[in-house]
């Protein structure tokens, strides 16, 4: 409180400066005015503090939404693509095994030729447009998609197809305001000509931005193709971990709380457990990561980057939260319920499991969901157990999937912030929107449960 100007009222006494003789309650004297001003200032500081906190929150959410919402749409080019048989099927016998030998790079030529032909056919002239600009117009992922489509359906060979093909992140950025004509001039990975080309195509309606499902369901991609990076593996990884946390932390947490709240005698052991739980709640999360690395990976030999390890670490982290809220919920059940059950001859165990626990369940579930939401956003411990690894294959179904390498939503965000290409920042913000949406849904569920089932005794 030292920063509040202190103009305290001095004691009025024989030694104090004498106040004016004629005083009225209706006319404020200088000292009263000063004190009232101080009162107003003090109030103002309070309002300012709240305003600053609110503004910070709004600014934070605003920037995330501003930067991230564009990750959900993506630019595709839709022009006729001629799938030259001479390129994709040099043998000419439509043998899938032979065609599989044609590398993705060759399909780049199809895209490139088709675009060049399209420009000629439609008399689109762009100044200074070179082969490199045309070639670099499409994403490397576009070629791979094309190859997969052709291999899946060899009848496409020799046809002219009109499928949307993914453009590079630079072209995409031109429609999201990230790349301007000026910045394109100094960017090694795009050019002014490419910018003009994109604008010319867009004017004809050949470039379209549409909702990008691949961002939510796709896998991570390498440094050079941010346009195809997706969150699929991270979402599955996070989901697996939440599953493990739920299955382990909820029963263990509830059992611990029941013991401490209903059965534990007051002795050294009980005190020790209590002290441990309150301290674990305050241990920095990264220390849990060290525990996971040393205990689960080095000693127990579990695989790195696996959801099982992440789930175990997050379980240990979430336990204190669940225990604290469960104990509060158990304590909120009035003693009269217990007395009544014991009075009609139930054992203590029956009292707890038949009467107290069901009544405390809404509170327990609320606490558990909030604990899960916390665990979902936790990053640091997961980085130590190797979840930053670059994973491009989906983990398989549980239980084997728990041991497959996976990523996690918050770690994927971190991963993308470490990439050089600015297009990944957009993805990182987009991933945060997905993360926050999940957390919001969980918290709303918790609030709903509380409203719906809460009982005042």
């Amino acid at each position: 409180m030292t920063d509040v100007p202190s103009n305290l009222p001095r004691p009025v006494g024989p030694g104090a400066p004498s106040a004016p003789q004629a005083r009225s309650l209706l006319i404020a004297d200088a000292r009263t005015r000063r004190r009232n001003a101080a009162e107003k200032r003090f109030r103002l500081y309070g309002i300012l503090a709240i305003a600053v906190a609110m503004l910070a929150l709004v600014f934070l959410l605003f920037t995330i939404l501003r930067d991230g919402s564009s990750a959900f749409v993506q630019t595709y080019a839709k022009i006729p693509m001629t799938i030259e048989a001479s390129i994709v099927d040099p043998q000419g016998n439509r043998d899938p095994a032979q065609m599989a030998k044609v590398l993705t790079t060759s399909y780049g030529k199809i895209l490139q030729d088709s675009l060049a032909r399209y420009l000629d056919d439609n008399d689109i002239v762009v100044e200074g447009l070179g082969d490199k600009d045309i070639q670099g117009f499409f994403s490397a992922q576009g070629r791979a998609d094309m190859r997969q489509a052709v291999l899946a359906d060899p009848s496409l060979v020799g046809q002219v197809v009109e499928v949307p093909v993914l453009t590079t992140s630079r072209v995409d950025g031109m429609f999201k305001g990230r790349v301007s004509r000026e910045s394109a001039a100094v960017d090694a990975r795009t050019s002014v000509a490419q910018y003009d080309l994109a604008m010319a195509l867009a004017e004809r309606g050949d470039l379209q931005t549409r909702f990008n499902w691949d961002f939510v369901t796709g896998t991570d991609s390498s440094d050079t193709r941010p346009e195809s990076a997706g969150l699929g593996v991270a979402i599955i990884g996070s989901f697996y971990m939440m599953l493990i946390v739920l299955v382990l932390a909820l029963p263990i947490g509830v059992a611990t709380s029941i013991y401490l709240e209903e059965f534990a005698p007051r002795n050294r052991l009980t005190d020790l457990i209590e002290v441990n739980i309150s301290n674990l709640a305050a241990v920095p999360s990264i220390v849990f990561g060290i525990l996971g690395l040393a205990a689960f990976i080095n000693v127990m030999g579990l695989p790195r980057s696996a959801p099982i390890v992440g789930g175990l670490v997050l379980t240990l982290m979430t336990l204190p939260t669940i225990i604290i809220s469960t104990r509060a919920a158990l304590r909120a059940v009035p003693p009269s319920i217990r007395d009544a059950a014991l009075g009609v001859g139930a054992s203590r165990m029956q009292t707890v499991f038949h009467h107290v626990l069901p009544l405390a369940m809404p509170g327990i579930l609320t606490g558990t969901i909030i604990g899960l939401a916390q665990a979902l956003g936790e990053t640091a411990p997961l980085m130590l157990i190797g979840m930053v690894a670059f994973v491009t294959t989906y983990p398989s179904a549980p239980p084997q999937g728990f041991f497959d390498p996976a990523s996690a939503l918050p770690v994927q965000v971190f991963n993308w912030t470490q990439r050089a290409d600015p297009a990944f920042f957009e993805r990182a913000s987009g991933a945060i929107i997905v993360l926050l949406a999940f957390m919001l849904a969980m918290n709303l569920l918790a609030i709903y449960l509380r409203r719906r089932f809460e009982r005042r005794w």
Partner: protein
Amino acid sequence: MPTFWIMITVLALAAAGFVVGRSQAVRAVSGNTRLLHSRPNYYGWNVALFTALPPLLLLLIWVLAQPAIVARAVEDHIPAEAIADNESRSLLMADVQRSATELGRAVSAGTLTEAEAAALTPLDKAAFDRLAKAGAKVSDTPHVLAAAQDYRSINKTAARLLTGLALALALGGMALALSRTVPEFRARNVVEQVVRGVLILCSLIAIATTVGIVLSLVFESYNFFRLYPWQDFFFGTEWTPSFGGGSKLGILPLLWGTLYISVIALLVAVPIGLFAAVYMSEYASQRVRSIVKPAIEVLAGIPTIVYGLFALVTVGPLIRDWLAMPLGLGNSASSVMTAGLVMGMMLIPFVSSLSDDIINAVPQSLRDGSLALGSTPSETIRQVVLPAALPGIVGAVLLAASRAIGETMIVVLGAGAMARISPNPFEAMTTITVKIVGQLTGDNDFASPETLVAFALGLTLFVITLGLNVFALYIVRKYREQYE
């Protein structure tokens, strides 16, 4: 994954045991359940618990002990000179494990038959070609291959043994429980004793976690201090790790960065949080409270990675362009100031909700007395309420400080990675947590001081935060008792 299937089988047996036990009890009194000591379900539960618990405990012990046991058995087959030092040993064991897994995968994919895998030698070029084509990376060093084959066979024998033992335990337990299922049997008491035991076991997990944390930190820190003198670690002012050797691993620059950032964070969070708490508990109407309080708590629910990205993308460049560059104090987007400000933002709800509780705990009579003597509300707060709440608020600030010191993602993304001691808050500095992440992310070699130092840093962090927490809780508790 035999453990998983054993578990499923055991649980199925337990479910069957429940049905059999219950019906046996009911049949023994020919349907008149009032003659039983306990309600019929307890007889079922008794059988189920006796069937399931012993094999599940065995499985748990096996899962914990298996890696160590198998590793020891395999080590006998590796020549002593190949595992001369610690470092090559851990690398070798990783190699053995990987080769064994790959062999197993090759067998299940049909690349090799079981017999071929067991008899595989490095000279068998054809088999290795097939393995390479299938993408299986099996080591062709003779002793590694031999060890990997041993590893597989030991594992297989052990798995067979485990399956047999677990099933025997389950059936034995079931038989024992069924033989005891007679009307006079006090099934409820037995079941309740077992459940009570399970409850106690669960609550011991908290202690086990703490012990695990302390052991893993202390053990590896001890290894670190054998390789690197502790004086240089605690009093060194230079942090220049290099995996080639000759690193300087002094903690002081990291400690400086950690404390500097925490102080800035607290300078932001404490005034804002405290004023917000005072306003909300003393001035705000019920309606304002019901809107503002949850909104501030939203700040607490946002994951730290979000704050980290905010620092990196938004706050860092803002501070650089509007403060640091015009003042000529630096041109780095990641700085102590960036991390401190954003971390302060994160701590606001922490400080405000704790202080709110504490201010509300001050008895109303103190306020009434002060107001009755003619003080204005603000005078009451400053001279009566806050002094009365001071110990609690100090505790809250200490808790916030411990949070700030242990915070990771904001500093990883916002503070930079340069270890330096400098008074300029617009320069990039680094913290203990950043370096723990830095030294432990990626491939680790657990024999070099550059990796092990992370454990010593973790231990330091753990001790500091634990000390702060214990002290803060002590203060808060002592204060609370004052007015109760």
